[in-house]
């Protein structure tokens, strides 16, 4: 069972895709060019503060709004290990899984969470924070397969007889 620990950034309810990456940056050439602008309407400094292995904890409806897949891609490019929220918007959820970014639904952690603290995640099992355990559900099998393949691109490449490192 996968297990990891990291520092947490706390965001609110209804973090929409325009906040995650505003439209004006969507036509930049690469995700690398875009990631510095992640969350800029809400917290312009956040992108530069996030370190590899950090996690985001948020309220309800994380990733609502547009279908822009740049949203999970910039978050992943910033080094975020996983996002734990009360709930996720649908398209964002699919896009994240397809990019190999782990999302976890957890109803209570957000209300207790203090930014800067560390948590430990045991995938498909529970989260530990401040001595408490927060249970989490298992992802459906087909999603675990995509995550297991390292995202949809790799899954498709394998189907086409290619292997991508």
């Amino acid at each position, binding site marked *: 069972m996968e297990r990891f620990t990291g520092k947490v950034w706390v965001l609110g309810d*209804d973090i*929409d895709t*325009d*906040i995650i990456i*505003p*439209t*004006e940056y*969507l*036509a*930049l*050439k690469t995700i690398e060019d875009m990631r510095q602008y992640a969350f*800029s*309407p*809400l917290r312009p400094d956040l992108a530069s503060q996030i370190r590899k292995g950090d996690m985001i904890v948020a309220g*309800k*409806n994380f990733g*609502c*709004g*547009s*279908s*822009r*897949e*740049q949203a*999970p891609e910039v978050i992943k490019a910033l080094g975020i290990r996983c996002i734990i929220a009360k*709930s*996720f*918007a*649908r*398209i964002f959820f*699919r*896009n994240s899984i*397809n*990019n190999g970014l782990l999302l976890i639904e957890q109803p209570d952690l957000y209300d207790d969470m203090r930014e800067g603290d560390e948590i430990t995640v045991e995938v498909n099992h529970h989260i530990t924070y401040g001595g408490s355990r927060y249970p989490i559900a298992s992802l*459906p099998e*087909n999603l675990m397969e995509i995550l297991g393949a390292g*995202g*949809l*691109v790799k899954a*498709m*490449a394998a189907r*086409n*007889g*290619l292997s*991508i490192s």
Partner: protein
Amino acid sequence: MGQTMIEKIISRNIGSDSVKQGDIVTVSVDRVMLDDIMIPFIVDKFHEMGFSKIWDPNKVVLIYDHLVPSSQQDDVRHYQVGDRFAEEYGLTHVHRSDGICHQLMTEAGYVKPGDVVFGTDSHTTTYGCVGAFSTGIGYTEMAAILGTGELWIRVPETIKIVIQGELPEHVMSKDLILKIIGDLGADGATYKALEFTGSTVENMTISSRMTMANMAIEAGAKCAVFAPDEKTAHYCGVELSEWEKNLKGDEDAVYCKTLIYQAKELVPVMACPSQVDKIRQVSQLEGTVIDQVFIGSCTNGRLEDLVAAAKMLEGKKVAPFVKLIVTPASRKVYQEADACGALKVLAQAGAVITHPGCGLCCGRTGGILCDGERVVATNNRNFLGRMGTSKVEIYLASPVVAAACAAAGKIVLPS
């Protein structure tokens, strides 16, 4: 047991008669829509995945709309990548300056009742206006569909929304859907389908239904559907088959929730900054001074919207120091609005009329605002920073309310 509309569409698609909500199934795709913002990413992923041909080029529609006309040098790269891809893989349905993707998909006849359609834009839910199952996906999944023609989906639960009676004067389908989003909340329909029914929607034009299906995503919905009827058949230029005539939710279908509205109780409303579900009656906001008004988008940039706005502005002028920007949803809408004189009325009132496209709604150009400015807009989102800085206040409203506000220079009820 009875089925919801969505269950029927998916059942037919996969050739099963027992599809039920919660099932994970793989559907065959009838049509896909690719837009200009996403096309370079789609092409990259398609190649990374190792595909060498498109499953069915005739089922693919490529539309340039977010970046038309170009406002930055890099925008042009998206056209170039799209043109090359279209040529290389034999795509023939390419629209380079004909309007907004969601308007074109139904208007140009790419979507028919009962189709399963995916697009790289969240407002792909719009095509439920003609009884199709359509929803937005990311570019990675789009690349996979281009190669395989398939996608896995989870059959959604459905919320049934019944609206009865006649809408009062100056109340449009926009007010209705805003009210519903306010009641459901921005995540109230996440993963779910909305099925609209009742005499109010039966009497609605396809355009008005489009407005509602378009905004379903703002309540988190996966899709929204209206049962096809004679209007649908006429709009799509088809005869409805027996199956299509029965494409509606069964009496004994299972709904996770049912909402019932009486149209006569509705009033003009606005979504206030910066949440689509923060709904207030226009009467409560009257007097709020505004800097700009935007009439357009795939939500409310159609002929009936422009005509409603023109009627409100006939013989009037846009208030001094206030800008009114009108962006018709498509080339056809522009031409029809020209032919019926609506464009002339709007231009005489002082409107800035742009070429059809996403315009201000997608926040790239088309009337971007600055700190401290306030805009009344007919589009679908008022997120923080959507039309400029995070200190721009966006109020979403119907075209008739927006036009009245433009003339007054402040938020007012239409009269």
